[in-house]
Structures are given as C-alpha cells and as structure tokens.
C-alpha cells in the first residue's frame, strides 16, 4: 500500500510507468530466455569446464588484448596529432581516420585473408616477380594475432573519436601550464594528456571490447574459438541450450567486471575541464615530428580503409559484367529502409529513457535505463533466439505469426542497439543545466513540451550523432537479420556474407562496396557534426 501511495504521489508518474513498461517490453526476450532455461544442468557445465572453457577463455582474452592494443595504437596517437598539431592534410586525416567504421569487421577479415592468401594478389605478385622473397611471405595468415590486428584496424575509430573529442576539450590551459612547468611534448602527452583523457579513451575502448566479444563471422573464419563461437556451437550444433546460456552469462559477467573495474579506477580521478578552454592554437611540429605524424596518421587509414576499399572496388570492377544492378539497388533500399526505421525508433526510445531518468531523478529509472542497455553485450544470435522463443512460446503472441515479420526484426534491433543510440544523447543531456528545465516549467511548459521544444533542439547535434552511429551499425548488422528476417528479405550485409562464406569474393564485392559507400557518406557527415560540436562548446 505504502508503495502504491508513493507511486500515486510521484510527480511524473505517467512518464515513469510508461517508460518502465516499455523497458519491460524490451527486456522480455532476455527475461524469458534466462527464466526458461536457467535450470543449471550439472553435466553441461562439467562438459564445458573439462573440454572447452580454458581454450575459449584464453582465446577471448588474448584476442581482446591484441585488438585493444592495436585499437589504442591506431586511435590515440593520430587523435593527439590531429587535435594538437598543425600540418598539411590535417582536416583530411581527421575525416579519413574515421572511415574504417564503415567496413564491417567480417568484410575486413574476409578481404584481408583473401588479399594475403596464397592465390591472392600480394603473394601472387611476389611469386611472379620476386620468387626469392615470396617464400618469406608464404605464411599462414589465418592467425589469431593477424585477426587481432584486423579487428584493431576495423574498430580503432571508436578510440580515435573518443580521444579526439577529449584531447580537444582538455584545452590550452593545461598544455600551457605543463609547458611552463618544463614538460617536453612527449612527457606532456604521457603525463598530462593521457591521464586526463583516461575516462574518454576507455569509453571508446569499451565499445571495441564489446564488438570483439560479439564478433562471430571473422572469428569463426579464422578458427579462433571465443565465447561467442562457443555459444553458437553449443546451441546450434549440439542443441545444448544450457551450455549456451551459461556461456552467455559468463560473457555478461565479464562485461560487468570490465565496467566495474573502469568505475573503480574512474572514482579516484573524476575530471572536470571547463568547456571554454579548448585548444585554440595548434602547435607547429618540429621537422622530425612530421615523420611520426604522417606515418601514424596514414597507416591506420591506409590499412583500415584505403587498401580494403580499393581491393573491393577492384573486385567490383572486375566483376562488373555480372553485377545485377537492380538487385543491388533493391538490397540497398532494403538496408536503408530497415535501418532508418529502426534507428528512429531507437533514438526515440533512448531519448525517452534518458529524459525520464532526468526528470524523475529516481534511482529506479537510472537502473531501468542501464538494464535496457544490456542488449549491446548479448550476442545478436542469442537475442534473435530469445525473441523467437518469446513470440512463439507465449500463447497470446503465438496466435499471430509475428516471427518473420518486420515488427519482430525491428524489435530485436531496438533492444540490441539501444545502447549505441543512447550514449551520445546521454552525454549531451548531462551537459545541460537543470535550470533549462526549471525555467521552461515556470514559463508554462509541461514535460512533453519541454522535451519537444527544449531538449530536442538543444541536443540536435547529439541526436544526429546518435542517429548516424546507430544507422551505420545497423547497416552492418548480420546475426539478428539472418535469424529473424522475413521471406525474400535480403540486406546488403546478408548478401555480402552469403557470398563471402562461399568464398565468392568477386560476387560479394559490389554489395560490400555499397555498405562501405553508404556508411562512409554518413560518417563523413557525422564527422562534420562532431567537429561542429567540438567547436561550439
């Protein structure tokens, strides 16, 4: 009774109840999945422990370590140079370094393995022209280390963007002060800039780690058994749902541990830098510094975008007579349409959760908002199956054959990618002072009007950022689409994947090229928006 009375008294009860119901609706598949199968079966766990767990754990962590190392290497240094130094093509690099995000990781992996394979152009060229050298490079390139580098190349833009924004906002005050205290530019970077940017860099790295944990296509191709491939194997090949759920739990547990460790280290160093102290004057690098700048800025772009892009472009041109353009256009429209609808829904849902969190100021709403972000750490295929179970096992839902409809596909997308859309909006909302809401209230606006007339326009750039980031991610999405898509429905991603796993690189090239081009256009626009944000604050 007490609780009901309290709820009735709450100021924004309609908002709170509404958003809670939506959160519950989103979480249903996962709740259903875990409650349904969480009867721990000893034998499954013993089997897992005995035969696989050690190998899976080692591979997962080793791959995360390598990928993280290269993502940091490719992300942080260029971000610092672009933020702090004046050099030719600086603006170009600022955009170019962002672009690998447009290439799905599995395409990157397939492309490089094809490129480096014995019959690929690299080794063939050496064999035909420099037979002596060819033996040195005749290696097995399908190694976990190579995979780590490839994933690092595909994912470093997350680190780059986060560091770039942070470096730009740290500002001249700290830099000037440190120079005044006699720090060399190297020392300045490692002793002041990096420690101050730790939270931002980590937030980028966290996304990288999530992507690695969720990676399936590339990891499987390289024969590296991680938790995610383990989940697939246990569930699909062996029909052992228990083992799959146990592995999924382990995966979620690891993610929470990482988040917890980050919070712990974060607590000691809560940084605040005033917004108006951004870097105003770019430094002029010394002559030998140019070498570092150009090599460290062009390497990630070259390997992460230009080479795969031109290889795929070249394949498309070679295959041009076989390209079915009407199908290409159809699939592009499919991809764009389904991504757009889902992204809009994701943004609206994310904004709703964050706004209710802001106005209600209840711990409960913060909790709800965080739990709904969980979708991002759960492998897409697990979500897909949870959704299937939900819509087929519950009698009420079962009577409409919803599985295989767009509603269910989009529903799964929303749950999976909510966190992606949320993070830019969240950081932007946090920056707005409370008095905006209060003033608007005293000027006669209700909560919905405040959202519509104040937060919508004020956070416009963040909303655009969230839209593009989510859109590009959805464009690349594979496992959920594969499991839940309706009849005759292909996206660019599914078509690319189907050709690629059959090793038809030429046929797949035009579709992957379309993904990359659409993604790149969006990302270039996003970069423009982000730079506007950096300059505006």
């Amino acid at each position, binding site marked *: 009774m007490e609780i009901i009375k309290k709820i009735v008294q709450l100021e924004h009860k309609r908002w709170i109840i509404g958003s809670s119901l939506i959160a519950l609706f989103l979480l249903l598949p996962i709740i259903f999945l875990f409650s349904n199968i969480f009867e721990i079966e000893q034998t499954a766990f013993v089997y897992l422990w005995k035969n696989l767990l050690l190998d899976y754990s080692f591979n997962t962590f080793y791959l995360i370590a390598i990928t993280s190392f290269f993502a940091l290497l490719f992300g942080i240094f260029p971000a610092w140079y672009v933020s702090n130094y004046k050099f030719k093509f600086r603006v170009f690099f600022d955009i170019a370094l962002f672009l690998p995000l447009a290439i799905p990781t599995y395409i990157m992996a397939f492309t490089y393995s094809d490129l480096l*394979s014995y019959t690929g152009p690299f080794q063939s060229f050496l064999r035909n022209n420099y037979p002596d050298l060819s033996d040195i490079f005749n290696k097995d390139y399908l190694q976990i280390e190579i995979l780590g580098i490839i994933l690092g190349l595909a994912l470093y833009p997350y680190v780059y963007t986060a560091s770039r924004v942070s470096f730009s906002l740290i500002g001249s005050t700290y830099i000037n002060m440190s120079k005044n205290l006699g720090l060399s530019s190297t020392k300045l970077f490692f002793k002041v800039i990096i420690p101050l940017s730790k939270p931002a860099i980590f937030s980028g790295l966290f996304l990288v780690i999530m992507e690695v944990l969720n990676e399936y296509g590339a990891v499987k191709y390289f024969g590296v058994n991680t938790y995610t491939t383990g989940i697939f194997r246990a569930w*699909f090949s062996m029909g052992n749902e228990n083992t799959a759920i146990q592995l999924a739990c382990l995966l979620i547990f690891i993610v929470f541990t990482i988040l917890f460790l980050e919070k712990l280290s974060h607590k000691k160093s809560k940084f605040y830098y005033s917004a108006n102290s951004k870097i105003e004057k770019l430094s002029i690098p010394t002559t030998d510094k140019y070498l570092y700048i150009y090599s460290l800025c062009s390497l990630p772009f070259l390997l992460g975008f230009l080479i795969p892009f031109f290889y795929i472009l070249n394949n498309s041109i070679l295959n041009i007579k076989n390209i079915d353009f009407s199908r290409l256009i159809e699939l592009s429209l499919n991809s764009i349409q389904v991504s757009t609808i889902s992204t809009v829904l994701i943004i609206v849902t994310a904004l709703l959760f964050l706004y209710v969190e802001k106005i209600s100021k209840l711990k409960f709403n913060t909790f709800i908002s965080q739990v709904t972000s969980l979708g991002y750490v759960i492998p897409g295929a697990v979500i897909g199956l949870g959704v299937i179970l939900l819509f*087929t096992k519950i009698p009420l839902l079962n009577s409409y*054959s919803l*599985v295989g409809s767009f509603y269910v596909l989009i529903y799964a997308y929303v749950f999976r990618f909510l966190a992606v859309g949320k993070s830019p909006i969240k950081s932007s909302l946090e920056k707005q002072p409370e008095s905006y809401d209060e003033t608007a209230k005293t000027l006669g606006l209700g909560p919905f009007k405040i959202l519509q007339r104040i937060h919508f326009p004020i956070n416009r750039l963040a909303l655009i950022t969230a839209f593009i980031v989510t859109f590009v991610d959805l464009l690349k999405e594979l496992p959920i689409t594969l499991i839940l898509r309706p009849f005759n429905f292909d996206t660019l991603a599914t078509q690319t994947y189907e050709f690629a796993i059959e090793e038809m690189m030429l046929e797949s090239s035009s579709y992957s090229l379309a993904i990359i081009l659409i993604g790149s256009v969006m990302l270039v626009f996003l970069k423009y928006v982000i730079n506007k944000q950096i300059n505006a604050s």
Partner: protein
Amino acid sequence: MKRVILFISTILVLSSCVETTKESDEINLYSQRHYKVDEKQYEAFEKETGIKVNVVKANADELIERLKNEGDNSPADLFITVDAGKLQKAKDLDLLQKISSPIIYQNVDIDLKDVNGYWIPITYRARIIVYSKDRVDVGELSTYANLTDKKWKNKVLVRSSSNAYNQALLSSIVANRGEEAATNWASELVKNFARDPKGNDRDQVKAITAGQGDLAIVNSYYIGLLLSSENDEEIKAGNSVGVFFPNQGEEESGSHINVSGIGLAKNAPNKENAIKLMEFLTSESAQKTYTNTSYEYPANPNVEPNEIVKKWGSFKKDILDLNQLGVFRNKAIEIFDKSGWK
C-alpha cells in the same frame, strides 16, 4: 500524446510497406542453400508454374529452432539443407511429414533418400582427400583411417570441427566403426595436423599449394569451383592438387557422401505447390543446372555429372543410412572437443 500516436502509426505504416504481400499461389522455403544456382532454379520454376517462391536463408540449426518454435503457425513449406544430418534432426523433432509423390521417387537415386520418405535428396557431394601432385605419391593414399599414419605428420589440413561437413564425416565413422575407433581416429589425426583448423575448404586447397601441408579433407565441388574460377591463381591452385576418393577397397565402406536435401514441413500450408517444386528440382533439366553450376553430383541417376567432375572418375559411395549422420552428431562434437580438434 497525439503526436506520439501519430508518430508510431507512421512507423507502423512505413514498416508494413515493406511487408511481403500474401499471395495464394506461392511457396515458402527455409533454406540453408544460398548459391546462385538456387535463385536460377526458383526463377525457372516460377516461370514454368506461376508459383512464387519465397525464401528465408540462414543456418540450418537456426532455421530448425525457428521451425520448432513456430510450431503449427509456421509459414514454412519446405526445409532445405546441405546436410542430411540436419534433415534427420528436423525429422526427429517432428517438424517434417512424409512425402508421397511417385515422380520424385522415380527421379532420385534410391540409395540417397530417406527410408521413411520424410526428405528427398537434390544433390550429393563426397568428402574427399586432395593431395599435392608434387609431393605426394597417390599410391600411398587409401582410407580416411590411413590419414592418421605417422608418415603424414604435419601434413594434414582440414577445417574447424564446428563445420557441419566435418561433423557429418565423423558421425559416419562413429556409425560405421563405433565410438572408440572414431575417438582414436580423431585424436590421432589431430597429431598429424599441419596447422590449427581454420578457414574453409577452399583455403585448405590453397594451403597445399602454398606448401603448408600436403593433404586436405574437402568437399568435392570446391575443386570444381576452384578450377572454374575467374582468378588464374585459383585455377593454378586447383590444378596443383589431385583428387582421391578414399575407402574404395572391397572391404571398405566407400567414400563418405552427404546430400543436400529437402524436407516437407509438417504443417506446410502450400503442400501441393511444395511437392511440385520438389518434382521440378529433381527433374533432369534442373539437375543438369545444379551440377553444371555448383559442381555437385546430381541426385537424379539419369543425369551425368559436369565434365570437370566426371574427369575424377566414378567412385564407391558409403551407403550408410544418411539419417545416421544426424543421430551421431552430438557424439561427434563431443569427440572433437575431447580430441582437441578445434
């Protein structure tokens, strides 16, 4: 609030635009096959009969999950796989029904079909041994079991154990020779691996060409695909290896084969159309298309295999009931895990 409702309804309208419209003359496939040849076949079928073919393509296991959970409401008419084991699994889960069509049974090879008539084959493929023409004397090759011989140490290439083709191969060994023999075979073979299992079948062939190993276990049609590639280097790679059908001796079981087949879904809403499609796909003209495009062996004995495939000669097939491939699937995966075959 009005705006919210308006917005949501806009979304719903938008999304219903992309919904497939229901037609009466249609047929719904859940298919693991996603080769270009399949699209060609369905187009030809549509032209001939006016029946529209709708396809969802995904992994067989995921499709089985979907079929299982959809139950009576499933829209699927046919379930198409590239592995008899999966068809058996679906049959075992009571997801299929008996197919009764004299035409189909006239069309297909009697050895390949399901004894109970729950599924039919459309093509078959052999899991063969390819060897480096330069470094291996073909006289030294004999059986799958022979691959565990010490002379092949660091010479054998094969893909990961999570691959269905390998699972089927080991299942057949369990079925033919028992669990113990299969376990021994797998653990001994792992010792002869030239490298950790990775990549796909084509990569194993390329690895032979690159000198990383001498022998590989692959599916037959991949060699056909390599030899017909548009990349000269791939043709070279295909030519550098020889094809060997193992287990051909009189006492032996024959080379392991597997089918790509079709099951009729238990609650198929368009059963008649579904049977028409099966009849079409097993017909001589469609079978020719299969073998000439994907280099698989036709399930229809009246159709000759493609020229490239024919050159490898005929071989003795393992006549094991292919349902056994599904029965021993989990056992095979356990053996893989225990033997350290990644």
